[in-house]
């Protein structure tokens, strides 16, 4: 297969893995196997995958509360992710972080974050590190439309632009921050319009079209690698499930809006394309899907077979020694 085709297949593998992972997490959460809260990435898979397909292992990403997709797209290990989500000792954070705080520094995944917009300054620091290192590493930060109202959005875009940091700002505009529609949270139509306030390029792209996501972020990443500075990319997308897997917050979004977006499923779209362009047959697709599902099931088995932390483990890691 040509490189482009390989890329599409590879992206498909990642997307379907995220989907199956998230479905299982939601299921296990409803079955009360998972403590705390989890924010599902279902519906937004094309963004994480399309962006991260441009990244190398040594590039760094910073994520937000809805971070599972970013982790998987950057190459995180499903077993250790699932173990962390289940609060096991074998998890990425030894059970200290849970869904909202998964990180894998060895693959440049600098952490999910429970505070809206808090990842942006951290990513600016990671990009500054890349700049000081002198190579062509880049950093990418993922955040939602809701985060764009926070001061740290502004401060980080400003800092990145004046220092020409090799940083790509990826706004996943899923049209809501919890139940607040983004059109009520800002007086402009697109988040990316704000790029002009920082003298950086801004792009608005269909976030459910993984190829479009890939191509747009390829440009931004290339620009960053070339030392030409940051970009602001806005990917329009939608989350299929409630704000998080818990019934403490009602989902007030219109039913038909949700259904309409499900019709625009990024995975189904890619499947159609792969079949249409005869890159993969429906049978091959099914096999990949089955494999992803098996990987996810393995990860659950791994998690459930892993020990819970000892209570006294709580005392460790406050400081590193």
């Amino acid at each position: 297969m040509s490189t482009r085709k390989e890329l599409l297949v590879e992206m498909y593998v990642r997307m379907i893995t995220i989907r199956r992972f998230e479905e299982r997490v939601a299921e296990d959460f409803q079955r009360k196997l998972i403590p705390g809260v989890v924010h599902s990435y279902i519906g937004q898979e094309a963004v994480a995958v399309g962006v991260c397909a441009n990244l190398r292992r040594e590039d760094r990403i910073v994520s937000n509360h809805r971070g599972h997709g970013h982790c998987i797209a950057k190459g995180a290990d499903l077993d250790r992710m699932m173990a962390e989500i289940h609060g096991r000792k074998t998890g990425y954070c030894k059970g200290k972080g849970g869904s909202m705080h998964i990180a894998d520094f060895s693959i440049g995944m600098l952490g999910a974050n429970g505070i809206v917009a808090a990842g942006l300054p951290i990513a600016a620091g990671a990009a500054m590190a890349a700049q000081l290192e002198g190579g062509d590493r880049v950093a990418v930060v993922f955040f939602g439309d809701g985060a764009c109202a926070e001061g740290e959005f502004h401060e980080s875009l400003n800092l990145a632009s004046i220092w020409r940091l090799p940083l790509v700002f990826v706004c996943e505009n899923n049209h809501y921050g919890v139940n607040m529609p983004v059109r009520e949270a800002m007086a402009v139509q697109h988040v990316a319009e704000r790029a002009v306030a920082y003298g950086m390029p801004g792009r608005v792209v269909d976030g459910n079209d993984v190829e479009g996501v890939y191509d747009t972020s390829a440009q931004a990443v290339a620009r960053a690698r070339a030392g030409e500075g940051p970009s602001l990319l806005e990917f329009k997308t939608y989350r299929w499930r409630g704000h998080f897997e818990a019934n403490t917050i009602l989902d007030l979004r219109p039913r038909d809006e949700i259904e309409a977006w499900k019709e625009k499923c990024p995975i189904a779209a890619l499947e159609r394309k792969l079949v249409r362009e005869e890159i993969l047959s429906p049978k091959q697709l099914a096999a990949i899907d089955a494999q992803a599902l098996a990987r996810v099931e393995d990860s659950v088995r791994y998690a459930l077979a892993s020990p819970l932390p000892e209570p006294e483990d709580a005392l460790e890691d406050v400081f590193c020694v």
Partner: protein
Amino acid sequence: MRSITFHQATLEALQEEFRRDHKTVHLSTDVPAPLRQEFGAARIRATPISESSFVGAATGLAGSGFRPVVNIRMATFGFVAMDQMVNQAAKITYMFGGQARFPIVYRMSVGAGNSMAAQHSINPYPMFMNVPGLKIILPSTPYDAKGLLKTAVRDDNPVMSFEHSALVDLAGEVPEEEYLIPFGEAALRRRGSDVTVVALARMAHFAMDVAEELEKEGVSMEVIDPRTLVPLDTQAIRDSVARTGRLLVVDEACRTCGAAAEIVSRVVEDEAAFARLKARPVRVCGLDVPIPFSPPMERYAVPDRKRIAAAVRDLLKR
């Protein structure tokens, strides 16, 4: 008497106060539907996720004659608006020589117990106790929550209401008739003669359970719930210790520089209480660690009934 939940009690408090005073306004990222319905979108505002802006706006509103109530939701979200609370609202009456009033209520939910991990399980009220100019309430029952919150809305100063997330669904007796609870009056939850246990928020319930348990062993525990931390009913605590001769302070917040340290200090620095102490005062607090996610560790990081009972038993050995 009828029984309602903590959540309902706080909602009723706001409904009553918002009916009473049309200068009240409400700011939060997620809008409480009953308030929006009754008082309209102008007074009950849904804000973007930009805490500094709407916490700061509350100060401007207050300085312009309104009485804003800001629901920050989880206390952790307040850190991005910290300057507007501790450096502006807290100091502004003073810096301006008292020429204006700043009636603002900040509501924040606190507490561990739901596996929400380090950023979402904090109890930061001790940090705010160190900041002069902020009143602080910490109710543990629906009754107190309603009465204190109503008083908070009428107070002419910034008041922070910390509400433990594990208490939200707790039901308790609340009269139909209107009432207010003044700040600075501790609740004596239980009379006892052997030891004074000062227990905050959720810990007050744990302490009551332990008191019942230990009664069977012949231990007579006095349980005091301060209810408001600023002002703090120091006298009630000192008097109690002067009677029992023993002090245990139980708080879920982190130990170092916590509310418990302040309460211990206020007791021991009092001549009378100090002279009557039969044993060293003891603190049972949250460990000095961020709250871990996984339940076994999370449970270990905060006080439980067992730890409280053990501390009481140990105190009585002396």
